[in-house]
């Protein structure tokens, strides 16, 4: 089963929704898509707009591979679950977002944590290479071992 997450972004992302739907058909895979605020016809996979975060995490745990928009939250949920991840950044030039998503997607791809897919025509190839393990990913490592909550507490406790 493959899963696609479009997150809570208020903009449309039909480019990914359609390509994912088509990939489910072409590759003959069972697919689930979380559409968020995107209006899209998903004939070849199960679709829903939103679910509680705990339910999304449960779907992630059951999926063989997850395709997400390039949003920090969506990608982190998958990386924490240690599942194969393909990130498709929303592009400002297509009106898919207000803030750039390519920066973080490219950074994490350079580190080997995910496969990025900026050209949506490459989505099916990316999916098959991860599923047949011709491409393997590295386990996610945080940027530093210093926790933000500890920095905040140490600072405020002293002041």
């Amino acid at each position: 089963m493959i899963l696609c997450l479009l997150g809570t972004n208020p903009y449309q992302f039909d480019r990914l929704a359609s390509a994912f739907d088509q990939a489910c058909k072409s590759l003959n895979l069972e697919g689930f898509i979380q559409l968020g605020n995107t209006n899209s016809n998903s004939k070849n996979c199960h679709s829903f707009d939103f679910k509680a975060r705990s339910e999304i995490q449960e779907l992630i745990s059951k999926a063989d591979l997850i395709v997400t928009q390039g949003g920090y939250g969506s990608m982190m949920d998958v990386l924490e679950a240690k599942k194969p991840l393909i990130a498709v950044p929303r592009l400002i030039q297509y009106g898919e977002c207000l803030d750039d998503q390519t920066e973080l997607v490219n950074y994490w791809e350079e580190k080997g944590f995910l496969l990025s897919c900026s050209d949506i025509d490459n989505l099916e190839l990316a999916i098959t290479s991860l599923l047949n393990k011709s491409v393997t990913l590295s386990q996610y490592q945080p940027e530093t071992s210093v926790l933000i909550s500890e920095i905040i507490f140490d600072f405020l406790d002293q002041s």
Partner: protein
Amino acid sequence: MQSNMYLDKKTLAISSGGGHLTELLAATENINFKDLLVVTCKNEHTTETLSKYNYSYIVDPHISYLKYFYCLCQSIFVLLTFRPNVIISTGAGIAVPTLLIGKFFGAKIVFIETGARVTTPSKTARLIYKISDLFIVQYSGLSAIFPKSKIGSLK
């Protein structure tokens, strides 16, 4: 990891929805606050997450001037009724009135740049950096732009 970080301060944690809220709650979940109020915009898919917090909704101004004005009025009301010692935020625009006015009222300002920003800072970060008492970034690529910042990870 310290497991009993008790903070004896009235704290207001404010952010817009989606990833900003997720990051805000992750940044503060290990801290045991004497009194914590979470302020964010109304979003049907965050009610489950917020249910274990004391929370309040204000309008997300996004890019509307009228909504900014409404957000400003609501922010002032929250500050006058809650009177926080500390304000923690991950942005975005929704938090700006609260951070600026809160600073004026003497609150300590803690700002965390989102994990989505690797080398290019957000507009909110640029605005809030000068008035922040603690400024946190999540990647070393931003340290040069914000010299007094500290680098930390959420988990």
